């Protein structure tokens, strides 16, 4: 309680945030809801729960979760290696991390499909093992992993850089093994950031279109993502149908994000329990 008014700028900062958020994000998105409202609830339900739509949610959300999970695990390792270990060419590797954003998604999709196709640099080794990547749902996971990679790494880097060596030293001097120190001291410290990175990678993956369609194969019911269905509606000049589908997707991802953020807030509060408990 007493902390609340010591620091200045709360009103200003929150005010700026809310105004900007409302103008740029909330108002436009409510335009979407407004447009979709010209459909009756029954029609909306039909659009949202058609067989193709349901299959596409499974593909989209399943592949996005898997990709975000892969990114969380490997992203943590990458961020750790980049911050803690010296090695030649580190700066170059570090700069590579942003590549997925800089490449237009279509280029990424085309390039990945070429790499993973049966005669590609990677595909020619994977296919004899029975692993078909390009033009299967697995290809979608690959594209989404590529797209989400920077989120986890870039979110973790500053936090790992910020870890004070004293904490690790203290743990070590109290007889903790390196694994114990990592699990009990370091991981809880970076966990909120890890979850943030996971959330961001996941939410980015849900909406991704450009890179996925080049590697997915786009077969109805199997490798068709929801954004492709939206495009398909637009191609028929069915703006309202497209809007409805977009709205459904938006609501689902909003609920999922809210859950992850609540989880994150809960874990952060637990970690910083000592300072926050008094509130």
């Amino acid at each position: 309680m007493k902390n609340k008014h010591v620091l200045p700028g709360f009103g200003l900062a929150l005010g700026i945030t809310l105004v900007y958020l409302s103008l740029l994000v909330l108002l436009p998105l409510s335009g979407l809801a407004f447009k979709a409202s010209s459909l009756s609830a029954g029609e909306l339900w039909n659009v949202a729960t058609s067989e193709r739509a349901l299959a596409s949610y499974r593909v989209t959300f399943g592949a996005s979760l898997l990709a975000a999970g892969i990114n969380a695990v490997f992203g943590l390792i990458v961020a750790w290696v980049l911050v803690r270990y010296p090695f030649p060419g580190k700066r170059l590797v570090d700069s590579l991390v942003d590549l997925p954003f800089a490449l237009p998604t279509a280029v990424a999709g085309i390039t990945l499909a070429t790499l993973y196709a049966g005669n590609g640099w990677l595909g020619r080794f994977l296919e004899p093992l029975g692993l078909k990547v390009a033009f299967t749902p697995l290809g979608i996971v690959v594209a989404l992993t590529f797209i989400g990679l920077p989120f986890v790494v870039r979110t973790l880097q500053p936090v790992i850089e910020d870890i004070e060596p004293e904490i690790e030293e203290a743990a070590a001097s109290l007889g903790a093994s390196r694994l114990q120190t990592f699990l009990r001291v370091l991981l809880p410290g970076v966990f909120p950031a890890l979850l943030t990175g996971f959330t961001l990678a996941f939410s980015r993956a849900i909406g991704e279109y450009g890179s996925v369609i080049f590697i997915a194969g786009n077969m109805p019911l199997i490798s068709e993502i929801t954004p492709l269905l939206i495009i398909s509606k637009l191609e028929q000049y069915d703006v309202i149908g497209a809007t409805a589908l977009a709205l459904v997707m938006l609501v689902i991802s909003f609920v999922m994000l809210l859950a992850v953020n609540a989880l994150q807030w809960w874990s952060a509060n637990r970690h910083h329990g000592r300072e926050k408990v008094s509130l």
Partner: protein
Amino acid sequence: MSGQTTRLATAEPRWLRAVLMVVGLGFLFFFLALPLVAVFVEAFQGGMSAYVEALRHPETLSAIGLTVFIAVFVLPFNIAVGVAAAWAIAKFDFRGKSLLITLIDLPFAVSPVVVGLVFLLIFGAQGLFGPWLAAHDVKIVFALPGMIIVTLFITFPFVARELIPLMQAQGKDEEEAAISLGASAWQMFFRVTLPNIKWGLLYGVILANARAMGEFGAVSVVSGHIRGETNTLPLHVEILYNEYNAVGAFASASVLALLALVTLVAKTVVEWQMRRETVMLDTPLAPENVGQPSGTQP
């Protein structure tokens, strides 16, 4: 605390280091380096001269200019709002915080195609403000303003989302100390907060910047694709590719990858500059802080 022994106790065993490096770098190799190499291989398929020729095309040059302009233009907005949002969220407790964070995340979850559609629904000729805009001859969509607006939308979360976990982990003791010692709000911000968050801020800016330059889907919807006028580099890449001009397309794509590298070079310079300043400031007062900002071991 003799550095030698503590370092050993707080570092991973040699074999684990090796494993982590192999796994981490291997992952980067397969997911990032190979695609990048593939892009350059395609770009140089026609040899160096074809590559240079492709890039010197006036339409390519104008696309590069437009892309860089938009990225630079949205930068200050992203920084100001991102810092404000992170400050409110990380340093204060209020009701509905989770909701606010989720709303900030929302632009990520909206499919780029839908982002474009949303702004068409508002500013397009058949949209909410369309008739009014047409009557006053103001162009938003299919012109630069529309492209800037969608770029602001898609890059909005980056800085805030980068800063929130960082500021959260840092707590608020230092700022509170500054205030209780009589610092003004701006003094506190520039002397205490900003130095603490500079890396997170920089990472946020780098990401936002890369995304602003690379965005295709959303911008594509509101651009109108007019050559030499509203064609950004990613759109140009797509068009060239569809025209069976793979060399031109991948050459332009390689420029985007290089533009991202420029940001990284900027980061390195800033990093270096800051370390020098910190050393100069800190040396007489607190020798043990030397070199600490980077946080890395030698």
